[in-house]
């Protein structure tokens, strides 16, 4: 969890700094490069970090509660993604002067937050533990 939060926080800071620099220096290519490279790199870090930890704890087994919970959460976030994307398209149509990078950035952040909140709520608690 801490790793995930750290990576997402670093990604959001890098995204904000990259976009601010691109905006100040008027470098259109830097905006697109930041929008592609930062989410891609952070997604890769999250995926590889999660896989490594899951392999060590056997939580990647399809019969483990973590894997089952993850599948359920992904399905729920997919439905939210459809709704949020529709909303983003509507906002883009209503406010055409909005910067082109703002909606995809908000969408990415919103979906990451959505998954995180759902994960925090659904996460099996270590109650009744007894070795």
């Amino acid at each position, binding site marked *: 969890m801490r790793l995930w939060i750290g990576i997402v926080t670093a990604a959001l800071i890098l995204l904000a700094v990259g976009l601010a620099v691109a905006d100040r220096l008027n470098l259109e290519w830097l905006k697109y490069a930041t929008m592609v490279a930062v989410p891609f790199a952070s997604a890769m870090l999250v995926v590889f970090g999660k896989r490594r930890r899951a392999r060590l704890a*056997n*939580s990647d087994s399809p019969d483990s509660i*973590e894997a089952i919970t993850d599948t359920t959460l992904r399905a729920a976030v997919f439905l939210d993604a459809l709704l949020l994307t529709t909303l983003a398209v509507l906002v883009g149509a209503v406010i055409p002067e909005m910067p082109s990078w703002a909606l995809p950035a908000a969408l990415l952040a919103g979906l990451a937050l959505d998954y995180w909140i759902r994960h925090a709520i659904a996460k*099996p608690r270590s109650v009744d533990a007894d070795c």
Partner: protein
Amino acid sequence: MRIVNEVRLRRREAGLTQEQLARLCAVSRQTIITVEAHTHTPTLPLALTLARTLGTSTDELFKIEEGPAN
């Protein structure tokens, strides 16, 4: 309808810790914790593996607890 189980009882009888049972069944310890706490119903493959590992049958390990009729 609720599925109850005797996993904790059988595990203790077998002298296993949750971690050991989890490793023998190739699942996470958290899975064993939630199964024993009756907050998670295991998949059929896991139920069969648990029964085999604990030297019992799924019929003995898992029971359907009938709720009050509506």
